[in-house]
């Protein structure tokens, strides 16, 4: 299977790799996937009090398409309001990266990561209680 140019570009030059401090009140962290499934994405969003995503970082364990999906998502969400970001569908990622059918789960995971990060931020802010992700 060959990769699309965009997947290759994100894989070779991933955007916004890294981490924010988890305990920063403005940071929402979403960790989705599982090591035994071969995919784990960590997406962190720095969100203003007004609910605007000011910055994003990711780290991903997974195939090239998973890395590319998360890298693309960090670009996609920056500057968006969380309500807009919550509405992002995986199909946007599939289209942008030209993902083949077997890699659609990578885009689903990236969509889940956005939702998980925002919901974590809301928990920080006391908007809605949510269970901790780690024991």
């Amino acid at each position: 299977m060959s990769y699309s140019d965009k997947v290759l570009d994100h894989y070779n030059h991933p955007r916004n790799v890294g981490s924010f401090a988890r305990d920063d009140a403005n940071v929402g962290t979403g960790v989705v996937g599982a090591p035994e499934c071969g995919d784990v994405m960590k997406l962190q969003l720095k969100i203003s009090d007004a609910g605007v995503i000011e910055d994003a970082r990711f780290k991903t364990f997974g195939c090239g398409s998973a890395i590319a999906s998360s890298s693309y998502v960090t670009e996609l969400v920056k500057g968006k309001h969380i309500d807009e970001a919550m509405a992002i569908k995986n199909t946007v990622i599939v289209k942008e990266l030209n993902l083949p059918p077997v890699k659609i789960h990578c885009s689903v995971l990236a969509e889940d990561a956005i939702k998980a990060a925002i919901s974590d931020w809301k928990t920080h802010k006391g908007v809605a209680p949510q269970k901790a992700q780690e024991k």
Partner: protein
Amino acid sequence: MLKTPVYMDNHATTPCDPRVLDAIMPYFTSKFGNAASRNHSFGWEAEEAVGKARDQIAGIINAKSKEIIFTSGATESDNLAIKGVAEFYKDKGNHLITCVTEHKAVLDSCRALERLGKATVTYLPVDKYGMVDPDAVRKAITDKTVLITIMYANNEIGTIHPIREIGKIAKQREIVFHCDAVQAVGKIPVDVEKDGIDLLSMSGHKIYGPKGVGALYVRSKGPRVRLTPIIDGGGHERGMRSGTLNVTGIVGFGAACEIAKTELAGEARYLTDLRNQLQAQLFERLDEVYLNGHPTERLPGNLNVSFAYVEGESLLMGINDVAVSSGSACTSATLEPSYVIRALGTDEELAHSSIRFGLGRFNTGEEVDYVAERVTKEVKRLREMSPLYEMAREGIDLKSVQWKA
């Protein structure tokens, strides 16, 4: 000068040795006869060439020429051995013994028989090195057992099974012993007499011969093994495998065996050295690298390692001028990680992180240095990108995390 891409996937297939190609060429053009044509020189010429190849192939496993049945490849050989024995000996019993890390050609032949209600199958587990316990084979035998099928050496992790011990057990209990020796023949000494093997599958393209040709060794004496054919027709190959012989393929397969037999000892030393060089470089430069398979009872050219916290396919993508393979789910058609690595009982994610290096006759020390360098650099880069590596560095036990898949 190093030429890229570097091919280091010699368990998947090998390039045709130029000496093999030289031997084949005349049989495409001037010596094109059908080996079954008995009434003219074209046929005789082809028949003679097939006879010579049969001797060469028999020679590498210490068999007799007439015990070699030509097939289209080892998948067909495995099918013929397993289905052929199950059918022929159905009045004697219907129980087969195999092991969980066998090649799919063996496992799926067994499953096909189960599905048709023609056999019950015991799938023996392996230890953490991927080795089957001969005692477990002994204990699995019932009065209905008609076949034991265990591979000589595993195609993913290179582990060499205790074949001679299993052969002894099979002999004592008078059960037919089939061995898929695709990865072993031409790489390590294989001797059907000393090893007590009754049926043995082999393939041309794994030993620098052409694709599309293989053989099944079928013991003729002590005991004489019988098979029901799976392909019917003109009665070629003593009725066990009909179809016009692939003369060019067979000639090449024979030549490849002749070369492999002559060069086996030296080549095994050469490949073991290269493998050890690669292993040493990777283990020195990187932490948390795990060897999959047996530390010593292993094919000379095989190195299978897991680079923790890095997914295999992404690593392959990073080292795109190096041809190796991965046990990662993303590289398989089934989207399941390697069943062989999972059978070792290691953590599931290490299966996703596994890379198989298959060194061969034409690899060089310079290539090994290059590959070690490329892999090291890419693993480090991907670990910087890996949330698992970060968590491990922070002292988080990944097993304690409740993952939301």
